[in-house]
């Protein structure tokens, strides 16, 4: 089962490729009560210790496959289930340092059965969003 917080403790770590640390990953569950097609997802910023990574720098792994924000916007046939976490990957040579980190992830989902104005989403800000928001978790540990 998933953890109650959107940002999961399990799944937060650096990414190693061919013996080299190339970046880090954050695992999140959906905060919406139903799964969505990736084209309905509105990815936003990721902030780690005050540094903002815009959505263009974040790759989402869903169902074992990597998607950029632009690819997700066209993926009307790929589904993100609420019981499956997504892994957000960010390139950063050397990764995050050992120790505590404050993490924020922002995303939302478009909802066709609510008035269209509810779909507005400010991807790098923190305005209220109907089906989403900015999720924060402090003192996450990199081993």
């Amino acid at each position, binding site marked *: *089962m998933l*953890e109650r917080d959107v940002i999961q403790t399990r799944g937060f770590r650096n990414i190693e490729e061919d013996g080299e640390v190339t970046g880090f990953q954050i695992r999140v569950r959906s905060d919406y009560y139903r799964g969505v097609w990736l*084209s309905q997802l*509105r990815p936003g910023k990721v902030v780690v210790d005050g540094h903002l990574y815009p959505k263009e720098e974040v790759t989402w792994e869903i169902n074992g496959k990597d998607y950029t924000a632009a690819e997700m916007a*066209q993926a*009307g*046939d790929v589904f993100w289930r609420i019981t499956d976490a997504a892994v957000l990957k960010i390139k950063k040579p050397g990764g995050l340092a050992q120790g505590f980190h404050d993490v924020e992830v922002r995303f939302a989902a478009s909802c*066709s059965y609510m008035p269209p104005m509810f779909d507005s989403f400010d991807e790098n800000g923190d305005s209220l969003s109907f089906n989403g928001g900015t999720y924060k978790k402090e003192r996450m540990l990199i081993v």
Partner: protein
Amino acid sequence: MEKKIRRGVAIYSYSGEYGRSMDLEDCFRDMQDMGATGIEILANSHIDSYPELSDEYLEKWNRLCSTYGIEPAEYGHWIDTRLFRDRDMNLEEARKKLINDFRIAHSLGFRILRTKMGVIDEKLAPVENWREIIRSVLPEAEKYDVVMCPEIHLTTVLSDRFVSDYVDFIQETGTKNFGLNIDLSVFQNRFDVPGVVVYNPEQKHSEPEEIIPLLPYVKCIHAKFNKMDDEFNELTIPYKEVLEILIRHGWEGYLLSEYEGERKDEPGYVSQELRKHHIMMKRILGY
């Protein structure tokens, strides 16, 4: 007395716990305690292989229904017309997803579908081409023996134009594969009860008797509840009046409890509220 009205649960009610502190079997277990006999699932939430139907899920589903004595009552699905940021879903895309849902629903044993359409305004008026979309899949709905039911929900009221448009559509086409799901939120007349989530305190509501002319088309009812007291009264919706009308007019179908109040993510909280709600319904129904 013939028990035409049956009690069930829309497991949307557990959405604050589902996948975290509850799984699908926990929902069935909880329902059995209340004597609920019908379940509404949301395809996009509760089928762990969606948009496919895996053999494993089908096997689990059949086992759960038979172990806990629960029948499929309603299958919730969506026509997500705003599928893309830059354009609406086209007719072919809508058809493909709808027919996929018909196929899955039929395999799981559902006949009644809650078909949630995309909307264009604050009154929740459906997309302008809803007739075209629905008409285009009527042959497949007949083939899979399913009835699509748009959900009439607050902020809509029963006298809104598009409710009569749905009835006109049924009469004009003569279809048996389109009906209505009434959510009892349309009768909510209290917006000042502490602990109730209120978006608009000036919200309009329908009177209980307004449901009477619609009853022949109502295939399922979402027994929405916001707040129960410890005397087993719902504090925002005139349940007794509405249920007595259903009994008097011989309406047949499921009342599916749907909790829309606070503290949904507190483990065990919704289960307790559902029990209160079912005591209330049992008392009013008399069985």
